[in-house]
């Protein structure tokens, strides 16, 4: 069984370590916050100017001046701080954010990522994604392994306009956990019940498979 989006988030949450500062993108990455392992403190950074993002507000207590980068109403936690967008991207560029999780339309075997534009179809803009991928030491992509037509999104080369080059470190898809190495994609784990053969067949880029590939447990 392929993972659902909650399981993808849950698996990514295992990458968290105590004291990590983490930036979570819109979509599946946002869900990671719900699966922070017990006994671990992580601090969420929202690039519109907040460290220490808390959960959604209780109904009726929403505050228009307090939103995250996805423009959702949120709350703060004890120890939060607000700052302007220059400082926010300053700390991102300076490598102070330990883990960045974001979605992707395509990832290439050398770690390039495309997630901001489909020429002629979609022009929403890159927002903060280009800054994040150009700066973060540790970028994990949450994505579906294939597009709705069944075509692989893990490619030898991206076909869409790039967001950043040679930056993705790890991919957690509905089918697998994959590390991006200097030699290409490397299969680390497979989704429960998903065969190595299926992952190979759905990965267009070079995929390294070495030894026994463990099944993820939930």
């Amino acid at each position, binding site marked *: 069984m392929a993972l659902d989006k909650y399981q993808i988030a849950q698996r990514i949450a295992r990458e968290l370590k105590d004291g990590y500062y983490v930036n979570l993108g819109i979509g599946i990455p946002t869900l990671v916050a719900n699966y922070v392992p017990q006994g671990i403190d992580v601090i969420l950074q*929202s*690039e*519109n*100017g*907040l460290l220490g993002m808390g*959960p*959604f*507000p*209780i*109904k*009726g*207590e*929403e*505050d*228009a*001046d*307090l*939103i*995250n*980068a*996805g*423009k*959702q*109403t*949120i709350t*703060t936690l004890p120890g939060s701080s*607000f*700052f*302007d*967008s*220059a400082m*926010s*991207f*300053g700390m*991102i*560029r300076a490598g102070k954010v330990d883990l960045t999780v974001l979605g992707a339309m395509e990832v290439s075997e050398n770690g*390039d990522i495309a997630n901001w534009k489909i020429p002629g179809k979609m*022009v*929403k*803009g*890159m*927002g*903060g*994604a*280009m*800054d994040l991928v*150009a*700066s973060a030491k540790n970028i994990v992509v949450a994505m579906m392994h294939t597009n709705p037509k069944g075509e692989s999104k893990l490619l030898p080369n991206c076909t869409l*306009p*790039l*967001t*950043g*080059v*040679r930056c993705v470190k790890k991919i957690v898809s509905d089918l697998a956990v994959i590390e991006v190495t200097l030699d290409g994609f490397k299969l680390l784990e497979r989704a429960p019940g998903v065969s190595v053969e299926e992952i190979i067949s759905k990965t267009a880029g070079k995929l390294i498979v070495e030894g026994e590939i463990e099944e993820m447990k939930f």
Partner: protein
Amino acid sequence: MNKIYKDATQAIEDIHDGATILLGGFGLCGIPENCITALVSKGVNNLTCISNNAGVDDFGIGLMLQKKQVKKMISSYVGENAEFERQLLSGELEVELIPQGTLATRCMAAGYGIPAIYTPAGVGTEVAHGKEVRSFDGKEYLLEMAFNADFAIVKAWKGDTMGNLIYKETARNFNPLMAMAGKITIAEVEELVEAGELDPNQIHTPGIYVNRIFEGKNYEKRIEQLTVRDS
């Protein structure tokens, strides 16, 4: 010395056709609602607007787009705005998309008298086209220029008669950066107080950067994505 203006209409009176304007806010959060309304009423045209987003169809900069007052939009993210998309696809509207951190830092550079900055954002992408790429310590960076804008229009929570500003929560975002970057900076505030009422340790934008200030009215503060939990 008098920086105090009666209202938005008076504060934006000399904004002319063809002006380049920085507008604070992120999404609909912390946007200068009063000044946008006044710009729409005044009907000034051919504007170049620099703002992280372009509002929604019927709020924020979206109101100026509907009246076709904007010739060029410089933003980082412009989703969620159908009229914007229509004008863009029809070629009526020029759009320059730049990374959000680059947008923020180009404002700061202007306010800090730094003509250009190096940033890694966009290296190897179409954002790098035509730009100088330079390597420092083995990492590549793009040279990006400080903004040069006629006006900056920002929204703050509190301000005083000397032009000092304090922002609230994430409504801070681009506002202090743009406040520093305009040749003329106009600040609308929810509450205008006498000099001395704000703690000098807590000023986000010192008054030296603010030319005009007024107390805004009737803030709607629309929420773009209302997300709540039950308990």
